[in-house]
């Protein structure tokens, strides 16, 4: 059975790491106010674009291929998630388990070949 108490150190680690990084972000803000380094003005706080005022909204349209990559990633990462339990139980499932997984992989390869043929992986 899964012994959840093994994960307790990770939870404590998470709390300490969060506290540490939050201190790293917020402590200098306080220190800068004490030392007088904190001195913002409108020019300093504007976003960087080569010294000009920004020409357009930075959240502009971006290439649809980034979206395609994200979708392909979901498919293959899910596939990997199926492969992980299979990989450690190969001695239990034996040949039937291996053949089943090969059929599953074969179907995914067909999908991958289709995406490749359709040009989803092309970046020019």
């Amino acid at each position, binding site marked *: 059975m899964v012994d959840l108490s093994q994960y307790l150190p990770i939870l404590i680690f998470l709390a300490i790491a969060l506290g540490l990084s939050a201190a790293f972000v917020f402590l200098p803000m306080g220190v800068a106010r004490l030392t007088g380094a904190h001195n913002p003005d409108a020019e300093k706080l504007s976003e*960087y674009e080569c010294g000009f005022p920004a020409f357009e909204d930075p959240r502009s349209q971006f290439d649809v291929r980034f979206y395609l990559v994200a979708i392909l990633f979901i498919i293959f990462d899910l596939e*990997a998630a199926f492969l992980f339990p299979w990989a450690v139980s190969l001695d239990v499932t034996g040949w039937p388990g291996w053949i089943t997984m090969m059929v599953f992989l074969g179907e995914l390869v067909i999908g991958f070949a289709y995406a490749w043929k359709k040009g989803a992986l092309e970046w020019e």
Partner: protein
Amino acid sequence: MTSYFQSLGLTYEWSWFIATIAGILLIALPLMLAVAMIIYVDRKIWAAMALRKGPNVVGPFGLLQSFADGLKVFLQETIIPSASNKGLFLIAPIITFTVALMAWAVIPFNSGAVLADINVGLLYILAVSSLGVYGVVISGWASNSKYPFFSAMRAAAQMISYEVSIGFILICVVLWSGTFNLNGIVEAQQGHGLGIVNGYFFNLLLFPMWVMFLISSLAETARAPFDLTEAESELVAGYQTEYSSMAFALFWLGEYANVLLMCTLNAVLFFGGWLPPLDIPVLYLIPGWLWLFAKIFFFFFVFSWVKATVPRYRYDQLMRLGWKIFLPMSLLFVVLVSGWLMVTRYGA
């Protein structure tokens, strides 16, 4: 360590708690120190390969350079751009650094010397390191500035692309060792090659996997030649452009902590972790963590070497390598490795 605190007269629960806190600090604080020193080492190696001297003013041989930089950055003003989403803007570096620290909870430093000896250690590392994408994407989005936004899109696509092939490579290792526990994986490598070499790299089916893992880990941590997220000729400083003070430094610390983690994974998964390189009794006299640190340092040197000598990839080349070469190759090797193991180990 728990039993030591118990011998001081504390109850089991309190001794466990104090021992765990001590263990966490024993990982987190030396890690931050190691990151500071490794930045210095990186600059020194890079300088030496360009026939320069590198940092040599602050402290003996410039050893204190990183600490001077850290102090300077700590005293700087934190600039929060007026157009940014202020909450998200400050959360992004916190996520990056927290996640970079968290993955170290399951790394075995010696036989049994691990903070959380969970049975799915490798899966945990994969999960935590994929969370790192959030820090990058949130920082790029929250900056509300052109170059950080482009950089964040690039970084997200790059990191998830190479994560797919890293996943398949890890499956090959798991198939061979039959466990996700990192200590188990290290122990399974004892005498793996010809009964004398400790490490999966000495294996015709896993050696190509190691080469791909090394290159993928360069891409996953956005190191040269895959540092397109910070291509200064195109994107200024990438997603960190709008950051200043410690918030900026946290991205650096997180990045180098991730680089060290990838070096450690190379050592643990393919080069026998805390085992000596050869299965000879004399070599076991040297403590395991020294072997591990030597291997980590070796891989870090390789990372620096690549950074100093290899020109940057184009983005289309990067995506082609990830999707059209590494992904089919690693998938093929999952089939080959599992098939080989079925025939030789489980099939009978």
